[in-house]
């Protein structure tokens, strides 16, 4: 496979990963700051990217920032946070058109990077703080974002499962933080926090497009080198969670809903760091990753209980989470069919067809991610996180080599931890 490997150098104490690819009509830049995932920091981390996008010293109003993006042929400026491996990442990026496709042939990457540099390092400040109107508006926006989590019942149920399963641990934290931390944040405290992030969090910069690695490196050096500096940026320790299940935790929550959301959380005791990781991917694929999987076939196709029923892995936590939407009265039947599927896996009742289908679809899923700049960056970032690194070809080979015994070995370690059910308000004393 060509066009998939990044070459890594450095810009000050940041790592710069560049991939030259001619297949995209835009150039994508992503800057990641690695931060710890903790109750103290999560809300500030979630707020910061939005405040930084509000204005810079040269473009002090948000309308000016947005119009600058428009002028750069609709440059897509973005900022967000995500959780991975018990860490929290602040993500900033810019996606600009490749001028070769435009009649004016503008040099959009150079101008775009200068703009991104401003957004990251030259915010609007006053009295040792950010602009208070930006911070207040963004606090309001974040508050609304947190409050609206329950509006998307599928996401809400997934988050609630994690809160129950990892109670008291950082993994339980919502990606966008918590309401109770929001009030204490002001323009000064957030600015102090910002200084800490830009001065000490490890930085990874990714660039994908029809670019020359040396030219891009020089460009990043010019734009970002001085701001990043050469000081050491100690890596944040990844949080692990590998405790044994003592008792299955059953949670029922009530809301005015038509459909029940049934989510099951399992501990597999296998993570991306382990030899068995490809076998865990196969385990999940056979159990519920696809439309040929056991959960889809049995809960949906055979029993007609659900429209969606699937499972997914958190590679760092070693969690397998099952999610489905069911008729509330069918709770017992659905739970029992799901448990049967876990048991089938444990017994090794897996056909040759299931194995070859899952190898083929899993391989396809991984390869397809390489067709988007964000997929490529995401994959590169994944390989960079653990101490155990697997490049794409190696991972594909390991998946091809997984044996039924290895899948069963994973299955026998899997423990059901939590059953979470979101249901309606009626029938409190049972059906």
């Amino acid at each position: 496979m060509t066009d998939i490997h990044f070459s890594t150098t450095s810009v000050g104490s940041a790592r710069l990963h560049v991939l030259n690819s001619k297949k995209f009509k835009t150039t994508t830049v992503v800057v990641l700051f690695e931060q710890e995932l903790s109750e103290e920091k999560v809300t500030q981390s979630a707020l910061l990217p939005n405040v930084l996008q509000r204005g810079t010293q040269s473009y002090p109003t948000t309308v000016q920032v947005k119009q600058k993006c428009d002028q750069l042929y609709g440059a897509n400026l973005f900022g967000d946070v995500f959780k991975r491996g018990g860490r929290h990442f602040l993500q900033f990026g810019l996606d600009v058109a490749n001028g070769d496709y435009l009649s004016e042939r503008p040099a959009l990457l150079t101008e775009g990077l200068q703009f991104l540099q401003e957004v990251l390092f030259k915010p609007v400040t006053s009295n040792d703080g950010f602009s208070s109107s930006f911070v207040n508006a963004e606090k309001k926006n974040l508050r609304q974002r947190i409050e609206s989590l329950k509006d998307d019942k599928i996401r809400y149920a997934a988050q609630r499962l994690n809160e129950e399963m990892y109670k008291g641990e950082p993994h339980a934290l919502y990606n966008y933080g918590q309401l109770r931390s929001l009030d204490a944040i002001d323009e000064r405290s957030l600015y102090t926090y910002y200084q800490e992030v830009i001065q000490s969090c490890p930085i990874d910069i990714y660039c994908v497009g029809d670019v020359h690695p040396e030219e891009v490196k020089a460009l990043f050096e010019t734009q970002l080198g001085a701001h990043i500096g050469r000081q050491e940026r100690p890596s944040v320790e990844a949080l692990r969670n590998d405790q044994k299940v003592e008792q299955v935790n059953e949670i029922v929550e009530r809301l005015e809903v038509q459909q029940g959301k049934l989510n099951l959380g399992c501990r597999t005791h296998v993570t991306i760091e382990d030899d068995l990781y490809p076998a865990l991917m196969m385990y999940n694929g056979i159990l519920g990753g696809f439309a040929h999987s056991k959960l889809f076939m049995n809960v949906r196709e055979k029993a007609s209980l659900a429209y969606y029923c699937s499972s997914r892995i958190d590679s760092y936590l070693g969690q397998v989470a099952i999610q489905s939407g069911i008729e509330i009265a069918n709770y017992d039947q659905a739970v029992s069919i799901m448990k049967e599927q876990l048991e089938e896996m444990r017994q090794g009742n897996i056909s040759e067809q299931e194995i070859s289908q899952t190898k083929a679809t899993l391989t396809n899923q991984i390869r397809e991610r390489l067709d988007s700049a964000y997929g490529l960056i995401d994959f590169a970032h994944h390989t960079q996180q653990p101490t155990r690194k697997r490049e794409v070809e190696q991972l594909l080979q390991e998946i091809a080599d997984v044996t039924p015994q290895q899948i069963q070995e994973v299955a026998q370690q899997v423990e059901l931890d939590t059953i979470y059910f979101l249901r309606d308000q009626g029938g409190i004393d049972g059906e």
Partner: protein
Amino acid sequence: MVNKIEHAQLKETLYQEKLPNGLNVFVVPKQGFQKTYAIFTTRYGAIDHDFQPPGKQRIRVPDGIAHFLEHKMFEQRSGEDVFQQFALQGAAANAYTSFTRTAYLYSCTENVEKNLTTLLDFVQEPYFTDENVEKEKGIIAQEIRMYDDTPDWRLYFGLIQAFYQQHPVKIDIAGTVESIYEITKEHLYQCYETFYHPSNMVLVIVGSVQPEQIIQLVAENQAKKNFTNQAEIKRFFEQEPDQVRTRRNDVQLAVGVPKCMFGFKERASFVGQKGDDFLRQELSTFLFLEYLFGQGSDFYQSLYDDGLIDEQFGYDYSLEDGFAFSMAGGDSSDPERLLARVEKEVPGFVQRGLDQTTFDRLRKKRIGSTLRLLNSPEWIANQYTRYQFAGTDLFRMIPLLEELTVDQVNERMREHVDFEQFATSVIKPSAQVSKE
């Protein structure tokens, strides 16, 4: 014969052939991509509920049938659903039903030709039984329930139902739990026979393929099947007055934040354009919506700073054969104040219009965003199909944007933004969470 059309500036080449049975095939090769994405679409969607199959009686079918049929196409005579076959061949298969189209698709990085044959064959070999039709009802009922609990969908649909009095666009795509229970295998065969003739369908393939070779494969596959020429399908749509059904549609749901969506229903005289006119109307509407509601507009920023909208606020324009409307909205802490400001301030922006500088800026944005979308084989294939049905070509988009003038956009804005045609949909929070 295969036609080849080069779009030099975009560095894209399109290959096209219309086969003897009427099937129109389009291929866009994408160098360097791992995947191939193929989509086989019939011009048949949720709105086609009243029709006359060639040579037969006019019929009216239950709501949600196009979508039901889409689900049932995956069933095969062998008893195994076709997902199993796609999985063995390493493909991710799917399907969707919109108001006007039903599409079957897959993407894969290996076995492109085998998967293409599987796609053509399963869509062209229906197998419905009383039993397999019955079994699907529970599944689709859960799909409907899922949408009932999805506030964004309720908000969107609430606005459509505020706009339309008669036209079937007002009917939910999946139907209702009641209407789907009326569906029988006879209904499904009637719809299938009417709308799945190759002459009513389009196949688009985008990705890592040899265009002539793949078209050859499709041609051979089609030549083996016995399709007789089909006369025109007569479709009947209820006459829709210009007036909106209601100015306001309110719903209460278990949400944390209220939601508000508003927009303008297109008058009948601006619906039904074809070819470049269709594309020009769509592009100019998007440009003025960006001027009014885009993130670079003063109005957006002022609403945002007052906490009346958040970053999820967005706008869209739907232009289809038979209906069209604009919509803007999202989460809002105070829908009443938001709507009051829209009604008060939008007329002023329309009155003043876009100036040349603003127009140039917004057009640049649109051109750059379109280039970004062309990175996606999925987007190209889906949009190519849609524009094909509208009698135009996706790749005309950038040339037409370059030709567009500020006067055309202002004129379009003044004909569309008419508060006589305005309606809103609002979702307010109801019950509280309780934990056991």
